[in-house]
């Protein structure tokens, strides 16, 4: 298999998808343009802003730095997917109640990134500190909030999931 056009099959949000893609298409563009899953957004397209964060085989990844063709055979999850399964319903609700988003453009990436921290924290029995939350989110750019409200919301969910509050 070598060429500029490839047939790929992958699972997106639990659904098997088969498409033909150009090698140069990133998974972020593939999700947006081929599948209409525009919750994965493009902020910088050079791997700095974190807006295009998706999960590939269970771990968060910059969608602008992975090719669609590389995702053949993988399990890709987007903000739409984790919304529909209810996996992050508590986190979304905390963001809403704490106004932890303004324009909302960074929010899908921010939520997926926070969810990874929360899941790992839960698995290890820890409640992350505000500093640990800030550090974990340090690769996700938000111009609107100044981050404080986001840290509040993530901290609240971490405590709630640990049964503390």
């Amino acid at each position, binding site marked *: 298999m070598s060429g*500029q056009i490839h047939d790929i099959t992958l699972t997106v949000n639990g659904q098997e998808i088969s498409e033909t893609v150009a090698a*140069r298409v990133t998974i972020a563009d593939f999700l947006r343009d081929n599948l209409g899953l525009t919750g994965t957004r493009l902020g910088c397209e050079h791997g700095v802003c974190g807006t295009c964060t998706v999960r590939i085989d269970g*771990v968060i990844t*910059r969608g*602008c730095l992975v*090719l669609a063709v590389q995702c053949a055979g993988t399990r890709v999850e987007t903000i739409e997917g984790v919304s529909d399964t209810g996996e992050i319903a508590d986190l979304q609700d905390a963001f809403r109640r704490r106004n932890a988003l303004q324009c909302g453009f960074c929010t899908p990436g921010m939520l997926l*990134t926070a969810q990874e921290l929360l899941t790992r924290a839960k698995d290890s029995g820890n409640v992350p500190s505000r500093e640990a939350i800030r550090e974990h989110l340090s690769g*996700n750019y938000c111009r609107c909030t100044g981050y404080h409200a986001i840290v509040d919301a993530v901290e609240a969910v971490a405590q709630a999931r640990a049964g503390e509050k």
Partner: protein
Amino acid sequence: MKPAAFAYAKARSLDHAVELLGQHDDDAKLLAGGQSLMASLNMRLSNPSILIDINGIAGLNVIAARNDQVEIGALVRHAQAERSPDIARHAPLIALAMPHIAHPAIRNRGTIGGSLAYADPAAELPACLVALDGEADIAGPQGKRSVKAADFFKGMFETALGPQEILAGIRVPAATGQTRVGFSELARRHGDYAIVGLAASARATGKRLSDVRLVYFGVGTAPTRARNAETAIAADAIDDAVAALAQDIDPPGDLQASGEVKLHLAGVLLRRIAKQLAEPRP
């Protein structure tokens, strides 16, 4: 901002990857984690005719401690290394460096081999490899060969890898009870490339340090050893060590800081690292 068109091939094995490289000369690029390559493709700063994806090659994502060495496969992801008990125990310098490298989503995807083969002079891992006196294992048309870290990094984004060669993995000596390591860097924001950074290792006999290796990054075209400072540290002369840096490194200025400031900061880091080296590992 979309990449120019290129072809894509998935290598089944190291031999297959070498073969594919041979078919495409200089026009091919290896794709590992892609965390630097993809950004430069998106910006059209690089226009290869084909990407050879090595992610599917079996056996390159292994971390193993054997024969007093730690072997780290080229496809080991940063996140995997960050959480590896073997690395924490046997290659503590790499464990120290790991949280400073970019951000979680990047570390989930980026590979140890990719970082080293890219040879960014401001990156953490090349300096760690030199500080640990590790070796790079390379696969190529003539088979396998190994290169000492000091000979692997040739310059800005330049390594000893030939056009058809692939970095298969690295080996570093496993830490012993006498091993001391230190790592520190100064980056404006968490996860940024550092203005200047220092990776260090030494052997401790009682309070005496020997085999001191101080390797700076962000101060030139490649990881840079501060040999005069190493001698002074071994002699427990920290002020002399800091003074010796002016002979050891000559950092050019960049957007972040002037060369003069980098040299000053290198001295600050050296004092911090000297304290780390003086403390036994927990």
